[in-house]
């Protein structure tokens, strides 16, 4: 059968490297002896610890309370004893306060959780929202935006007429979303139904990239009887999974710069989030684990793992049997937008979709020296936002911040398409981030930002 392939302007084709893990069933990772639960796994205010050293905690027990509206609680991902608080690096390079729990390996759930709701369909939106917040739900695609905030009634009375589930997973190497769509499709659809009810939205769309046709066909089969849900296939093009580009591909609407999807009547969530929402609503199951793709030429066996939140990268890589001696680079997330990390003693968080370990022999990371810009305009053609990356970077290199603003640097989504295609190997995203820091500082010149000299 032929389906219309949705797409967006700009972008570029990238080899997807997904063949290593896209057919491997998700394995349950062994829970480690100690988990480190960051109090800041979401965009917004960090949560406040509710436990003290020496406390015994059960699995799923709330150990951090959300602070303010844009914030979510954190939960124990193992049962055991709180043995300390530690300030440690997290995948995005910042520091966070973590609650350290020693695992008793009993995996005892907190009472009251994991009991099947008799009639989940009768729950009213208010109750749905409360359960989603209580479960510590955030966007699991990587942005970790608190889910309940997306569904809170808008002050201006804006309403969504589309909820889009993002099953694009356009980052190379990552297959976590692909696996969850194959392994738990009913849970994803159930979660979407609750989201639609919550937002009083008549239409749900599940969007899948064409390199995952098995997931697409499965989803089509499961949703064809339901005329409120549509499953669409999107062209394999990076960054198809970027929120703004996905909304355009599916609805033809453009989110204005600085705007939110709701401004054009859309809410977007990751497919993994939808499955977790279904578990939260029906079983009051908090978000304490997620699927993580472990890959790269430095790992012994590329694999998709279901991992407890708070597991150190080191512990996961160790149980994979990988030898780390000659590791040169470790990336948290995908290779296009993920963070290179400087330590393996950092915890898996709610937005950790992959861990990529590379050693010296990796051809993937090989890059040549930066050369001069030859104005080939490949970056201009690849930019999904319609920017001129090279013009911004030239302004940034001569520290002309007002000029960077003229070229709309703040509209950049940092997808990396420009730097990927640049034949002169210019690290465009690096310079664009620098320019953003200056342009968005108080005087537009970086003068009041203590980090910029």
């Amino acid at each position, binding site marked *: 059968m032929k389906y219309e392939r949705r797409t967006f*302007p*700009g972008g*570029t084709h*990238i080899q997807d490297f997904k063949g290593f893990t896209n057919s491997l069933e998700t394995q349950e990772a062994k829970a480690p002896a100690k988990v480190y639960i960051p109090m800041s796994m979401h965009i917004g205010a960090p949560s406040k610890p509710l436990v003290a050293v020496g406390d015994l905690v059960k699995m799923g027990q709330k150990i951090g309370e959300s602070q303010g509206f844009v914030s979510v609680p954190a939960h124990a991902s193992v049962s055991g004893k709180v043995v300390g608080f530690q300030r440690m690096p997290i995948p995005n390079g910042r520091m966070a306060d973590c609650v350290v729990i020693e695992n008793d390996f009993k995996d005892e759930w907190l009472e009251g959780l994991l009991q099947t709701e008799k009639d989940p369909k009768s729950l009213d939106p208010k109750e749905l929202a409360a359960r989603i917040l209580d479960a510590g739900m955030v966007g699991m695609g990587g942005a970790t935006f608190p889910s309940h905030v997306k569904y809170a009634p808008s002050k201006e009375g804006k309403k969504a007429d589309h909820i889009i589930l993002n099953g694009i997973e356009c980052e*190379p190497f990552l297959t976590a979303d692909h696996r969850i769509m194959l392994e738990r499709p009913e849970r994803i659809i159930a979660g979407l139904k609750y989201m639609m009810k919550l937002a009083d939205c008549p239409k749900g769309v599940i969007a899948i990239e064409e390199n995952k046709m098995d997931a697409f066909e499965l989803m089509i089969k499961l949703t064809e009887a339901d005329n409120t849900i549509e499953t669409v296939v999107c062209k394999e093009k990076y960054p198809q999974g970027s929120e*703004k580009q996905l909304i355009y591909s599916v609805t033809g609407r*453009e989110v*204005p*710069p600085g*705007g939110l999807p709701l401004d054009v009547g859309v809410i977007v969530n990751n497919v993994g989030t939808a499955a977790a929402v279904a578990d939260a609503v029906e079983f009051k199951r908090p978000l304490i684990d997620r699927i993580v793709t472990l890959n790269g030429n430095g790992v012994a066996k590329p694999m998709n793992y279901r991992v407890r939140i708070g597991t150190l990268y*080191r512990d996961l*890589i160790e149980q994979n049997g990988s*030898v*780390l*001696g*000659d*590791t*040169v*680079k470790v*990336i948290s997330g995908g*290779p*296009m*937008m*993920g*963070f*290179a*990390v*400087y330590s*393996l003693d950092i915890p898996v968080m709610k937005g950790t979709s992959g861990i990529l370990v590379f050693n010296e022999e990796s051809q*993937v*990371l090989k*890059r040549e020296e930066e*050369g*001069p*810009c*030859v*104005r080939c*305009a490949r970056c*201009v053609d690849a930019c*999904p*936002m*319609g*920017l*001129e990356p*090279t*013009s911004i970077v030239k302004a940034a290199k001569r520290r002309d911040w007002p000029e960077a603003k003229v*070229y*709309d640097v703040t*509209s950049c989504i*940092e997808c*990396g398409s420009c*730097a*990927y*295609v640049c*034949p*002169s*190997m210019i*690290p465009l*995203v690096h310079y664009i*981030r620098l320019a953003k820091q200056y342009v968005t500082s108080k005087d537009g010149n970086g003068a009041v930002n203590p980090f910029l000299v």
Partner: protein
Amino acid sequence: MESITRPLILSCSPHLHSRYTTDKAMRDVSLALVPAALAAAYYFGIRALLVILVSMVSALAAEYISRRIMRRSNSLMDGSAALTGALLAMCLPPGIPLWAASLGAVSAIIIGKQVFGGLGQNVFNPAHVGRAILLASFPVHMTTWMPANGSVVDAVTMATPLALMKAGSMDQLPSLWQMFIGQVPGSLGETSALAILLGGLYLIYRGHVDWRIPGTYLGTVFVLTAVFGTINGYGLIYPFMQLCSGGLMIGAFFMATDWVTSPITKKGRLIFGLGLGILTCLIRFFGGLAEGVCYSILIMNILTPLIDRYTKGRIFGRAK
């Protein structure tokens, strides 16, 4: 577990890069010139290849020595100097003294490129700078033409079709087919429209060149020459002859599309091509020279930053 033996590399995303690099592109563009070079060798003999060789070697030497003197990195491997040498040779007469070809290549590299700061910084197309300097300095050498071997029309061996058209001597022109395949006097890489078209289409197919520049350039010339030809009663063959003569084809596909000196916006490229077409026709119809491609491109090169400035694309999400 064995621990990591050295600090991990930290770098800004993206961590992945395409295999496409500047030097590969330069080599590909040079490859696209091969049909034109072979045609030149076929029509003008081994002498044509000698001019190409001297021009390329001189360009490479000038690049290497000038950068050495300026204490800059060796840039021979980026392939741009060799390409400039080859492109310059394409717009020289096959009988040009080799010292002149060499001097042109050296001027192209030093005055056309390195004084601006090297690759990516130059305002003008370096090969055309070299050609313009030669034309101003040695007008006789630059306009003395060799007959193309096998040319059946002996009477036109010393005048290019463009010069004939300029003089209004339409009856002495070779046939359109001869002009298309290159069986006419002219610069060594310019005569065979067919060979250049082959290379040019390859460039578009490979994505090195945006069709917009050659498309609007050739289209504009076609329309204007059709109008001019009709007014003067030259018939419908006139615009086709104009397209196949002089440096237009190589200019449209290889010179005007030079990344460094042409606009980076799509709309800008349309304007650029339109401007080229108008200027070329103005010079061909009313100028003192028979050919206007070289100067049109140099003039539009100056306007490139301005065109870019005023043709910025619409940002995604902003009002249309």
